[in-house]
């Protein structure tokens, strides 16, 4: 694993982010950041690892959890406040399912670490299918589904932009991590 030492701005390296939208935002912020000398009393070790950024991972988790909770609440035959309360633990359990069911099987088939990417893709695919169904319904949860697709579309656009700017992104990363 590569690490950057005593460069606080390396927190913004696109390589420390997972999804295209977060990588693009990190790149924009990195360009706007001047190289700052580290505080004399501080010493920093920052690994370059794509799942390292808290804001991105927590943001995605909250978004996915809120979306799943909305879908489950809308599907429950209960009064809305009770349905929302019931949906919170149910959504947490639902998010466990692809991991508990798919994880061990996929690990046997594709081996260590790579199987997590497939579990990740399966979880997102399940959410995509649920969103497609809810988006076409007349339920109040369709707004959450539309928001889900809006984020997916933005992420797709960000991926294209990053691909077009790949040289500049690589150069900015090398300047920072040098």
């Amino acid at each position, binding site marked *: 694993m590569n690490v950057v030492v005593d460069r606080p701005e390396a927190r913004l390296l696109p390589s420390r982010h997972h999804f295209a939208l977060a990588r693009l935002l990190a790149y924009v912020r990195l360009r706007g950041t001047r190289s700052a000398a580290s505080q004399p009393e501080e010493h*920093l070790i920052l690994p370059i690892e794509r799942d390292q950024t808290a804001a991105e991972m927590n943001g995605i*988790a909250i978004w996915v959890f809120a979306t799943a909770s909305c879908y489950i609440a809308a599907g429950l035959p209960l009064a809305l406040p009770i349905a929302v309360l019931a949906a919170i633990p149910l959504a*947490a359990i639902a998010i466990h399912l692809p991991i508990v069911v798919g994880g061990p099987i996929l690990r046997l088939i594709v081996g260590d670490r790579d199987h997590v990417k497939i579990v990740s893709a399966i979880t997102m695919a399940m959410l995509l299918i649920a969103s497609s169904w809810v988006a076409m319904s007349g339920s109040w949860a369709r707004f959450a589904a539309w928001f889900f697709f809006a984020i997916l579309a933005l992420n797709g656009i960000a991926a294209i932009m990053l691909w077009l700017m790949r040289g500049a992104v690589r150069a900015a990363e090398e300047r920072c991590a040098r």
Partner: protein
Amino acid sequence: MTRSAWWRRFLVRGVFWRQLLRFAILNVPPWTEPVIMAFWSTFFLLWGPGRRGVMRNLKVIKPGSFAVTNFFRCYRVFWNYAWTIADNVRFKELRTVPDWEFSGWDHFQEMQARGGAILLTAHMGSYDLGAHLFSETSTRRIVMVRAPEADPQTREFEEHHGADGLRIEFNTRATELALDLLENVRDGAIVAIQGDRVTGTISSLPATLFGRPTTVPAGPFALAMTARVPIFPVFVVRMGRRRYRLMTSRPIEITRSRNRDDDFARAVAQWMEELENVVRGRWYQWFTFEPYWQEPAA
């Protein structure tokens, strides 16, 4: 396995939960981790003795606090503990390193430069992860002393899934261990010990924390006095997701005089001051699930 033993693995300190955590680390996509952590932190609030222990300790750390507030604070302790042990397993299994910040860098460098030292820490943040970082980045050999797991299966599991490059000693065989540690410190090694609570029958020294009497292990202080090395208070504090700060404070020098008890008392008081400052500011990372102080007699 005996008939009475099969269910023990499901007790709170049983091996099942370690196995489940390892399974989660190997299978959970990182972007679902916060949801999983929140769920299991809530689940572990059902652990009555642990919850009550934390809440009782919080009552002393935050005098005048309400029980309902401390219940939510207790959740925060469990949440931080879940992340901490998960980060530790992630490092052992996948070698995933968190971000490291250092404060008291001068003291940290001094500790590395000196020939032998005691690293005194508490049940805070990730003690294990800090020790692993140390063993990988330091030129000094590090010997970590810790209390063994209560459950034999859990102990076996932890020994089997330990990281390389770090020597762990368990504080069960007091006399031989003391001599062994003394030899190591004199050879220039750094001995890391948790000095905030006394477990089992190890010898202790009287202390005062948050204005209440308590005891701390005597071993680190006796070792420092015998080996004539300083004690460096070091705390590994979780700052956020995969982000830790290693805080090193000014060293505690134990000067020998005619009155050994006074020498120890001065050193213990300095250690308690450091510990109290850190626990007051970061109570949500003091992983002490048993009541730390005796209940005052009615």
